[in-house]
């Protein structure tokens, strides 16, 4: 049976449509995907993302151990700051893309994708290198409050000074009497916060935020809107846009690979790939013919299959049909054209700069 977050009953009572995602029974939508998407872009939305996992590294070796597993450089962030990056295998394949919250050099929390909880914990524990590694995935409720009104909604509920909390920084503080870690992070391309609290207090926190958000136009939002929101800003989704057989360089995540920081797992393989040239690249595209590209559709050039669509949707904000696709480097430049095989019909596509949407 699919797992349930502590908020399951609240979702069902609020009329959410539940679907199974990565082994979890999660709300895919409440009022409707487009409505929720628009609320996040213009006002605010509240997501239950408790299916995400948390693994904590502690002890004198914690920072050093994690930095050997992580492609980005935790030496460049300060305590109270978070960083996005990948964990790779020796061959450069991505185990997962994660956000690491540096509470101190001896206490770091790794936020992992729901579908990779067990795989990631095994990988991290195998490479603990003297750090104490704990799987705290069932010990946290995680709520994402996202949208331009997020700060206005959250501030009256907390003593933390949100105006001073910069993007990708976090602080501990009570929210509506619930002890939380308040992080200015998210997966929507809007300003917003991710709140971590104890499972027993998750419902209380959710209800307080929904109530406080009502006058500001906040709505509860599901995984459907989360996916269209993230794709408009070209945030990668593990399982669609990357997997164990994709390197960060292929996935267009070279900016989170810090070759100069010293050795880390996958570094040599990626350096070799960089020298030899990438076999394929993930690019953003728009369809110039009608239709919607979907994960797994073939990319055609001169009638031959040369790549594959990783993610695709009709963009609710910019209205065009957008997507990410793996293509040969020769087709990766902005303005390049190819076709997407939409159930037997070739639809013209053009490579464009990402993100598809930039917040004002």
């Amino acid at each position, binding site marked *: 049976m699919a797992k349930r977050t502590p908020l399951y009953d609240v979702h069902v009572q609020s009329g959410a449509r539940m679907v199974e995602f990565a082994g979890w029974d999660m709300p895919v939508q409440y009022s409707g*995907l487009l409505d929720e998407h628009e609320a996040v872009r213009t006002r605010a939305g509240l997501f239950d993302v408790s299916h995400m996992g948390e693994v904590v590294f502690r002890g004198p070796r914690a920072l050093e151990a994690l930095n050997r597993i992580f492609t980005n450089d935790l030496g460049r962030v300060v305590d109270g700051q978070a960083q996005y990056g990948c964990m790779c295998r020796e061959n450069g394949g991505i185990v997962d893309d994660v956000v690491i919250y540096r509470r101190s050099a001896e206490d770091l929390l790794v936020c992992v994708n729901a579908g990779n909880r067990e795989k990631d914990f095994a990988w991290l524990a195998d490479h603990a290198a003297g750090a104490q590694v704990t799987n705290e995935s069932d010990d946290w409720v995680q709520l994402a409050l996202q949208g331009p009104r997020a700060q206005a909604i959250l501030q009256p509920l907390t003593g933390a000074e949100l105006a001073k909390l910069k993007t990708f920084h976090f602080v501990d503080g009570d929210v509506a009497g619930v002890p939380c870690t308040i992080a200015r992070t998210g997966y929507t391309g809007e300003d917003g916060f991710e709140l971590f609290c104890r499972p027993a207090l998750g419902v209380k926190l959710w209800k307080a935020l929904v109530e406080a958000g009502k006058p500001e136009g906040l709505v509860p939002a599901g995984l459907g809107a989360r996916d269209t929101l993230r794709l408009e800003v070209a945030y990668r989704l593990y399982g669609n846009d990357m997997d164990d057989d994709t390197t960060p360089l292929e996935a267009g995540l070279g900016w989170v690979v810090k070759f100069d920081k010293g050795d880390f797992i996958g570094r040599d393989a990626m350096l070799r790939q960089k020298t030899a040239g990438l076999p394929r690249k993930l690019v953003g595209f728009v369809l110039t013919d009608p239709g919607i590209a979907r994960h797994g559709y073939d990319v055609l050039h001169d009638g031959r299959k040369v790549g594959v669509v990783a993610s695709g949707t*009709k963009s609710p904000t910019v209205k065009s*049909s957008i997507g990410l696709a793996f293509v040969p480097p020769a087709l990766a430049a902005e303005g390049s054209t190819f076709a997407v095989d939409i159930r037997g019909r070739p639809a013209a596509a053009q490579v464009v700069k990402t993100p598809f949407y930039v917040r004002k």
Partner: protein
Amino acid sequence: MNFPDDLKYTRDHEWARVQGNRVTVGITDFAQDALGDVVYVELPEVGDVVKKGETFGVVESTKAVSDLFAPVSGKVVEVNAPLVDAPETVNEDPYEEGWMIVIESTDAKELAELLDGAAYRKFVEEEQE
């Protein structure tokens, strides 16, 4: 959920409004609700010939693709072209403004094979169990 009694239905969740040999076709309230927000509709052209049970178009929501199946055989004599630019109409008004095509039916026997409102409602309820 609303399944008007003056319409006929298929097990693929299309509705058919039969007026003589003219059959107007759309998708049911159940289908639009299950799909979620419809963002793309692909329809045939006037003059195309469709066959009962075969696909005549595609409807896509932000999360799913679904084929449209002809409830009867015949020639497409009208297409709701505005739907292509306003696919959300399918969600808002599936039985009126959200109609998709009109088929000139060539086989009256096929009409008798369609479900009435009560039978379709029962089918939907059983499918949900």
